[in-house]
């Protein structure tokens, strides 16, 4: 860890003032401190935002508002989240460990860095960590890596569980900077790696995530998050699925589907949603609808199983959601 200056502002305005490169915001610290110890990230200035008034979990006619500093464990336990957005609570509870969930913030969760082991090992080339040095994962041990949204420069998987149901539910992210505030859809908040895998989102320098809004919908309450991994707990997803269905009788009238563990960002599957809509909620429908879920996937040597696993994960998630009705 390199020496850095430290500030502890009390207002958002104060926090985002003095926009300059090399500043990092510190919330729960579960990603930032870890990566600073490894010197994957070496900010010259750390702005501790924990005193900012960015808390609150409220439900109103628009939807669910969550302050960026709310802790994962608190959001997962909130009755409004559990009742109206079950897959959000499930994604949170399947993340990390209890200790980490007690510390990690919602804003930090959405901005957590990839678990690509080459990104974390400063002795190996990595375009995300050090642009232009090359991607070690392309020909390396890439079993956990992404198959969708990849480029020749980067195949790092987006690590967040929470972002998967949030993307499925058309969540918006609220941002603040010295230039003012703005709101962007979470799905387009994340950028694809392309030639610049070091850029992961549309945040401007010293722009801060202040909160999110998950819209109200007739389908969010009938939803499920399924996470598939080798170990039963405390591991990142090989694949995951966030599925939400609105049914009229046996017929699916609306579907929202997203996948994790397979993409360089949380992966909304609108084609699967369309293929489900208007059909009866049967296993035949599910099987047919997911057939193209991994279209365009570019597997590498060790993750060739991921397209098939993604399809199977989606079918299982849809099946479980139906069985749990």
């Amino acid at each position: 860890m390199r020496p850095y200056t430290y500030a502890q502002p009390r207002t958002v305005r104060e926090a985002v003032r003095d926009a300059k490169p090399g500043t990092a915001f510190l919330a729960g610290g579960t990603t930032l401190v870890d990566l600073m110890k490894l010197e994957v990230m070496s900010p010259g200035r750390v702005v501790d935002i924990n005193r900012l008034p960015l808390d609150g979990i409220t439900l109103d006619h628009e939807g669910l508002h969550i302050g960026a500093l709310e802790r994962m464990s608190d959001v997962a336990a909130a009755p409004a989240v559990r009742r109206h957005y079950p897959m959000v609570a499930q994604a949170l509870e399947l993340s990390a460990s209890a200790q980490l969930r007690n510390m990690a913030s919602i804003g930090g969760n959405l901005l957590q860095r990839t678990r690509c082991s080459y990104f974390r090992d400063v002795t190996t080339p990595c375009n995300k960590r050090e642009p232009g040095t090359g991607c070690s994962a392309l020909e390396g041990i890439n079993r956990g890596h992404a198959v969708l949204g990849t480029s020749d420069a980067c195949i790092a998987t987006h690590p967040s569980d929470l972002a998967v149901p949030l993307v499925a539910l058309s969540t918006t992210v609220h941002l603040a900077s010295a230039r003012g505030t703005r709101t962007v859809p979470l799905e387009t908040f994340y950028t694809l790696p392309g030639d610049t895998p070091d850029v992961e989102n549309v945040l401007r320098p010293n722009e801060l995530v202040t909160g999110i809004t998950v819209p109200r919908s007739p389908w969010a309450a009938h939803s499920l998050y399924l996470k598939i991994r080798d170990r039963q707990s405390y591991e990142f997803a090989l694949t995951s699925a966030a599925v939400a269905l609105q049914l009229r009788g046996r017929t699916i009238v609306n579907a929202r589907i997203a996948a994790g563990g397979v993409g360089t960002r949380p992966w909304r599957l609108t084609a699967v949603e369309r293929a489900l809509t208007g059909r009866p909620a049967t296993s035949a429908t599910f099987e047919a609808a997911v057939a193209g879920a991994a279209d365009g996937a570019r597997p590498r040597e060790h993750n060739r199983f991921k397209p098939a696993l993604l399809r199977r994960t989606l079918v299982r998630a849809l099946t479980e959601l139906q069985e749990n009705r």
Partner: protein
Amino acid sequence: MSRSPVGRETERVDGRLKATGAAEYSGDYRAPDLAHAHLVTSTIARGTLTGIDTAAALASPGVLRVYAAPDPRLGLYPITGPLAGFVENYVPLRDAEVHFHGQAIAMVVAETPEQARDAAARVTATYDTRPPRTSLADEPHVPAGPTISGSPSSLNILAPGVASIDAALAASDVVVEAEFHQQMQHHAAMEPHAVLAVWKGDQVTLYAGAQVPSAYALGTAQRIGVPPQNVRLITKYVGGAFGARVILWSDTPLAAAAAREIGRPVRLVLTREQMFTLTGHRPQLTQTVRLGASRDGVLNAISHRSVSERPTTVTFPMTPAHATTDALYRTSNLHVDAQLATLDIPGSRAMRGPNEAPGSFALETAMDELAVATGVDPVELRLRNYATKSPSTGLPWSSKHLEECYRLGARRFGWSARSAKPRSRVEGQWLYGTGMATAIYPAHRRAASVRIRLLDDDTAVVSTGISDFGTGAATMVGISGADALEIPLTRVTPEIGDTLLPQGAPAAGSSATHATVPLIVNAARDAIKELKRLAVTDDRSPWHGANADDLRYERGVLHGQGRSMTFGSLLAAVDSPDITALAESAGEPDPRYVHHSFGAHFCEVRVNRFTGETRVTRFTTVADVGRVINSRAARSQLVGGVIFGIGHALLEENPLELDTGRLASSTLADYLVPVNADVPDIDVHLLGRPDPILTGPLGDGSEEAGTRSLGARGLGEIGTVGSAAAIGNAVYNATGIRVRDVPITLDKLIEHL
């Protein structure tokens, strides 16, 4: 009068200290004026350092020294002679050669651990790089050499008139041939390797986790070039080891040398990532098992070949058929062979059930395949091939109750309800299956010594320089002392983990219990004899002038001539603070017998029919490990062993990058060990039948204290042996898919589901 604590459920003597954080582990010790070291490791696998730039590190805040290879200031030396196999064959930081990716090439010492780590990250190196040898398949194979117990690693026993093992197999009605692969596995102990070195004059005290403390201290003395008596090692509490702390790695000599050179105490703690390359691993392994049998499953021929790695620096030579295939089943034709290939990879070391865990995975999976091929029930198949004498030596066992393990285990588990047909039990999304396998582990006596002191407050101190890395060894010492002296456990103080104590048994090879307990018995016998001698020779004793043979010791009290005195009051009466007896043994085996522990595992798994992940749902293990000293610790060891088996079967591997020689999964997020959610309730039953030979005659219970052997055998590793095969066999029963490359991950199953 208290009953003997042997065999009862005894809490660890140090359990409360450990659970409350009061127990001091190596990294917890403090010293005045302490300095902190951090290592820098190589980023190539083979080559020569052409330069190390230390300028930025030296300019970092708080930095005291930066040692960079080749650095003469440390004063480290090569080790030859008997300890040569106990250390790596290069001297850390002494020359510019790089032997593996992740080797120590520099060390920073600073005022704080954070300053040392920060400065270490600023050290850069340049290399003249050569292509590393990394592939088992591509490099020449050479014989592995003798097994760990000294027997040949290659055997070819043929029935009269049989020309070769291939001919014996060709003549068999049913032949199973199967090839197995596994990547490197790691000990992944909870406590990181940490060492504190404190010099006082020419004497150094080391605080470090070590499984063989005396050899560890001796090796350090040779490495740092001081006489053996100048090194003391304290290794009182150790947070797991599993073989990673058997030999001396580079960390302790480096810390000791830096402390000497700087003139301040130095603490060096390896990072978790560094532990993966600097403290050993279980070697990667390819195995081929061929079984030839009659149509009713009676074995005629067994062949077990293996190829493993020989790292250039230090090697655990894998002989996975040893103590498994060469010991388990009756057969007229037996062939085992172990080969190694030289690779430029980190040094390897024994890991819990070093040969036996992978060897039994191959053999016991092949046996399951034979059960399928012949239609014979897997338990019945093993009973049909039950050996009553060692198939490789022809010698009988000192004690063997494996048959009872099979029968009792099958009953506890409910094996008879099983359908041999794969995929016959489906519940919702889950395919359920069951499997079983045999466990076997050798029991070798090892050299050890024990001192017992009887004190004038009626307590006893039992001392032996053994290491307790979570095994319960300290409690075993206390229980055995209480039993031998017939006094309550609360009046016995076990003293372990210090090289100033009499040299203890190695905490390796599951041998500590059966090496130590008989010596505690002997020391107790001699202490009682000395007590009687004192009673009749000291003129302040009421028995002065009597015949020692007329005195009787019972439950801490001497009786004779109508009088009784506790040993403490006698010692007080004669004004002697204590009585001491020392027992030693070289641990010679009885050549008329072979010695093993045995067990049978029964397992149920479920496999998701959509996504293919396997979860263990039930597990029963019945083990024949001689008499049990502490039921609670013994069960805990067996449970821990089975959890190792779950990791082996389903989770653990560290793939090697063939082009770079870099281990790809060297963090605990990438190298997966089981967590609680992966572990079901594990039903362990121990037969508790004393071994009548291994530790001496058992007696009939009427003897005087300190003369009866307990017939206990060690049990630290047997739970790891066979448990992975039981899981794999259950996966086959659940799915009809045979996976011979562990870990059995979902990607190997889904395309067939």
